């Protein structure tokens, strides 16, 4: 757990005092990722670096796991915190193995222990130990170097990690891959992470909570969905962008919105049955045909059902695309737009039809959050005036 208590930094510059961080109060629960987000110069980096004392706080305190760090020795403190910087900062004079074992070596681990750890770490970041441990950083691609940077920070298994735009220097495709890998790792390691970003999409994807900064002040501290559905003020609203409702599509899974009621026909049903079922369920154009294993097999359109006699198996059209229960709504919307349809059948992990999702249900789900303006996110926000 990381807790910041009135953390403040004032830089004395020739042009006068700059308040880079102004009485920041926040708490990151154990095992969660908190994203510091905001426009350039708003104090994200300053706040982050006060935690491991790369920048000395002017006033205020940092607590790690409930313990006040003020009295701790700086080097001990830093060795217990994983640190990843945007420029990666691998030591060019050291091999990959030497780089990722720096902290264990500083901590005085014995040789067999840190050698073993190096291999574990390479497994963790999905890189081949044999191929890479003896190489030098200059012999790696940017994405590989960034993975090594993360491994180095994880080496001594610190409970807390600080990451300053760790994936900022990587091209978008690789960045998405590394983000996914990192989330997978985090699901197992459950580190408490403070993570600076200026990319809203990254924040929404990675963050359990997002802290929005403006001119040294913490403006809002909420879970991503609360932030997008209930921005606290005009600044947050404009920072998140006009399409913030669309960004929420990323956060909602089909599972939360789909309806398990679903009319369908079997290949052996007659077209007459199909037509009456279309009418019973009030479908406009067509009904789904499902095979014996429960998988979508085709579509029977209303016009065919009305004008033709025979069995469904002889008169169906190709089945529409389907949504998986764990897909996010963004993918579903994209499929709907691409196929000019307002609904999709939903399938479970084994590919069996288990319901359907409609555009109407999606807009209703997203819209309901705006209508109710929940106050239940209040405990997540910083409220300096209510503290002690």
């Amino acid at each position, binding site marked *: 757990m990381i807790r910041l208590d009135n953390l403040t930094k004032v830089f004395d510059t020739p042009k006068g005092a700059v308040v880079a961080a102004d009485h920041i109060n926040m708490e990151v629960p154990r095992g969660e990722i908190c994203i510091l987000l905001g426009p350039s110069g708003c104090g994200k980096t300053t706040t982050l670096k006060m935690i491991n004392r790369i920048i000395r706080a002017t006033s205020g305190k940092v607590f790690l796991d409930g313990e006040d760090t003020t009295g701790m020795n700086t080097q001990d403190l*830093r060795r217990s915190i994983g640190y990843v910087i945007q420029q990666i900062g691998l030591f*060019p004079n050291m091999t990959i193995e030497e780089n990722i074992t720096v902290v264990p070596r500083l901590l005085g681990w014995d040789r067999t222990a840190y050698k073993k750890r190096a291999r574990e770490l390479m497994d963790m970041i999905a890189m081949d130990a044999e191929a890479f441990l003896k190489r030098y950083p200059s012999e790696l691609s940017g994405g590989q170097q960034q993975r090594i940077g993360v491994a180095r920070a994880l080496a001594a298994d610190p409970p807390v990690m600080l990451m300053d735009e760790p994936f900022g220097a990587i091209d978008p495709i690789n960045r998405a891959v590394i983000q996914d890998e990192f989330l997978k790792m985090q699901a197992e390691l459950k580190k408490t992470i403070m993570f600076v970003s200026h990319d809203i999409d990254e924040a929404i994807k990675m963050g359990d909570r997002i802290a929005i900064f403006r001119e040294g002040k913490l403006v809002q501290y909420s879970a991503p969905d609360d932030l997008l559905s209930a921005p606290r003020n005009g600044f947050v609203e404009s920072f998140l962008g006009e399409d913030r409702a669309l960004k929420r599509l990323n956060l909602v899974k089909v599972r939360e919105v789909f309806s398990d009621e679903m009319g369908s026909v079997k290949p052996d049903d007659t077209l007459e049955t199909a037509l009456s079922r279309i009418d019973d369920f009030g479908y406009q154009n067509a009904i789904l045909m499902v095979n014996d294993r429960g998988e979508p097999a085709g579509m029977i359109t209303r016009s065919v059902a009305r004008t033709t006699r025979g069995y469904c198996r002889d008169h169906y059209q190709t089945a529409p695309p389907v949504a998986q229960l764990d897909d996010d709504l963004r993918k579903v919307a994209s499929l709907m737009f691409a196929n000019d349809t307002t609904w999709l059948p939903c399938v479970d992990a084994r590919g069996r039809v288990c319901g359907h999702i409609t555009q109407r249900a999606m807009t209703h789900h997203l819209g309901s959050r705006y209508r109710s303006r929940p106050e239940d996110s209040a405990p997540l926000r910083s409220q300096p005036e209510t503290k002690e």
Partner: protein
Amino acid sequence: MELFRYVLDNAGLLGQLTLEHISLVGVAVGIATLTGVPIGIAITKNERLARSVLYLASIIVTIPSIALFGVMIPLLSIFGYGIGYVPAVIAVLLYSQLPIIRNTYTAINNVNPALREAARGIGMSQNQRLRMVEIPLAVPVIMAGVRTAVVLNIGVMAIAAYIGAGGLGTLISRGISQSDPRQLIVGAVAVSLLAIIVDYALLALQKRLTPRGMERDVAAA
């Protein structure tokens, strides 16, 4: 042809003078490295001090060597070392300070700030940072400074023959005083060749001391 015969006839002497020359420069630059590198590192902590130290070192280099020897004779005579080995080594020691201190200072100062921050953030102490990161990264540039000092002072040492320090300068001074072009030419050529050969040898050493992961950077520089 005549020169060639002279060289053959005096191979022993030539070899002895060359060794003398090398040992004089070697001892002096060796001591200069042991003093200059720590000074160069120390002054990275204080910019004002750095400016004064570098200024002083540059002034020393502008003093003509003959004048420097002239100044040292009366000073060192007090201890009985007015001429010979000691003042020669001291002069070279002084001349070597500038390239060595300046290169050390620049190299340490130019270590990528991101690396320095990474090292700090990881929890290295100041000494660990120097030992594990900054000095290894600075070695190529420090070695370049040492090379400059050596090459520069192989020339300076030739003049030290005039205060009886020995070395290849002996041939040159004798050549002049005896109006013997053979000795003069052989001495001068030997000094130049020595400078070139030693420079290459040190370059090879510099490459060996360069951390392997940085070879590409060095080649590019």
